[in-house]
């Protein structure tokens, strides 16, 4: 009862961290792992940033992408082209990153971890101009 009361007090006080607040800074909590620790890829990928993913969610993700200062910039889903067919659906993909400013969708030829042509669906949590934070 005391724990419930404490939790309620925290929520009422506005100090209970939201999911978006929990993943706002790298590294994200829970089962998320740096992609570079799971497969042989550079730690920082130009155009995307430093990626984290829960391995249980591969290949779709979400992948959480951070800039050089460890701030979340985007949530990325990687959807294999062969799975975009009448018999396959991607439902209920987690979206822990909070507000979305805009979305990018583009083809990727593949990379370790998702070793087949796929689509990147990028939910940008920053303005278009701030994509430059992960450009290089």
């Amino acid at each position, binding site marked *: 009862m005391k724990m419930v009361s404490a939790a309620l007090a925290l929520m009422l006080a506005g100090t209970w961290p939201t999911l978006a607040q929990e993943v706002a800074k790298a590294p994200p909590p829970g089962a998320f792992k740096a992609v570079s620790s799971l497969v042989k890829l*550079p730690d920082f990928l130009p*155009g995307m940033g430093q990626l984290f993913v829960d391995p249980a969610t591969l290949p779709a993700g979400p992948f959480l992408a951070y800039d050089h200062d460890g701030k979340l910039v985007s949530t990325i889903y990687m959807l294999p082209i062969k799975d975009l067919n009448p018999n396959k659906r991607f439902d209920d993909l987690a979206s822990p990153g909070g507000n979305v400013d805009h979305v990018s969708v583009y083809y*990727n*030829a593949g990379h370790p971890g998702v*070793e087949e042509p796929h689509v990147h669906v990028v939910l940008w949590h920053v303005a278009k101009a701030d994509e430059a934070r992960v450009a290089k």
Partner: protein
Amino acid sequence: MLFFPQARATGNDIIDVEMHGKDDGAHVWFDPAGIHVEPGQTVRWTNRDPGNSHTVTSYHPDVFDRPLRIPANAKPWNSDYLLPGQSFSVTLTVPGVYDYYCVPHEHAGMVGRIVVGTPQPVAPSAVDPSLTPLPDVALNGFPPVDEIIAKGIVRRV
């Protein structure tokens, strides 16, 4: 695919092949895609793609159960993943045609071909159903042997 005339390298030259990719990873390739070398020369692959890892892997039953597409008595190779800036080299002594691919990008058509010396035509062998066949996009990505011999190198731009 473009062809740039260039005499094939001789002696102990190291022949460089680079791995490249567009910034968004939408397109990846070996450059040059086709080269003609002398027996005993060394080919060195270097990953020049800052945003991706690549392999250079020969088609051979001993490497991931793939069809034989190098001379029967040549030694197969697999570089494993090369991070940006890393290199891998192979010295080719047996004349013939060597086809290779990048493991994560074979289905994106990232393949290459080396012609060593002046190979004799080889009769196609029976298809072994236990081996994983090449996707069409890879089969269509090899520069023709005659063009490689005539031009020295074949490059995609």
